């Protein structure tokens, strides 16, 4: 039920996350960031998110490629809940009918 390595990973993840929550408050509250540092910090989360999902953009079946295109289109126009619904429905249907 509880794996020591899993717990260790979770505790370290949680520590890293809590650091991100307090460092901005503790360190940056009385400083002005350089434009370069600001650009870097603004770009970072998106760079990571897109890298994590990159395999979906080079899937080896047409159904998944069409599905990710529909998902991308939905994400630029809709909010979270409808986008997730459109993405899941489109993927399920496309896989069923195109394979």
């Amino acid at each position, binding site marked *: *039920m*509880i*794996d020591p*390595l899993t*717990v*260790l*990973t*979770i*505790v*370290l*993840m*949680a520590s*890293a*996350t*809590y650091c*991100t*929550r*307090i*460092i*901005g*408050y503790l360190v*940056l509250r009385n400083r002005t*960031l350089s*434009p*370069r540092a600001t*650009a*870097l*910090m*603004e*770009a*970072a*989360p*998106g*760079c*990571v*998110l*897109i*890298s*994590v*999902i*990159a*395999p979906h*953009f*080079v899937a080896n079946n047409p159904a998944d490629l069409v599905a990710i295109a529909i*998902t*991308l289109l939905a*994400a630029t126009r*809709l909010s*979270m*809940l409808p*986008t*997730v*619904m459109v*993405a*899941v429905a*489109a*993927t*399920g249907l*496309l*896989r069923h009918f195109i394979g």
Partner: protein
Amino acid sequence: MSAMEGEASMQQAPIQSELWRGIKGCIPVLLGIVPYALVLGAQAAQKGLSVIEVPLMTGLNFAGGSEFAAIQLWTSPPHIMLIVAITFLVNSRHLLMGAAIAPFLRHLPKRKALPALFAMTDESWALGLSDAKARTEQGMQPAFSLPYYLGTALVFYVAWVGFTTLGAALGPVLGDVEAYGFDMAFPAVFLVLMAGMWKGFAAARPWLVSLVVAALTYLFVPGAWYVAAGAVSGLIAAYVLAGDDA
């Protein structure tokens, strides 16, 4: 001392109503996170996390984007350093968020501000900050209402931990979530988060670099290196491009 007592008594009366205002304020946003939490829980169960380990992660870490990324990369045994590094990078937006909210927390001692920051999520931060701006316009002091913010955070916390656990419990019953297309919820959630960060094409060029490098690495290099390769290339691009514009 007397100023602090004055402030305390001024806040004491509306604490409950402020807390309640926060709870009510975030209920519409819950609709968006409940399915997301269920999918995360179900996917985590498929990767072998137990019904105890899932709430441990979502309750201690309490940052959805990084949990999705961690589960996506989860192996048995997990690549600890990779997952921790990715968690930090995904949550690096908190650095900016903390800096932005800091001026509104000046009236709070650190012993209150630091625990309160544990509950800072995209949603509670946005709600707390927009409420503080509205209260400033109405001339209310302090502008930042701690009980309001904690009310929103409390609802998110209970819903997030509760529904991810439920997802983990239901996951094995649902079977392979990929067969229904639920795995596309991950990219969908990530793309919506990125749409929220969108600041024009120029600012998004590093994302494109990350996408291309990560996709090529995924195709030609075995293992999970594509995430690190994509993220680092994007950051280098951001650094270089910022130099061009400055």
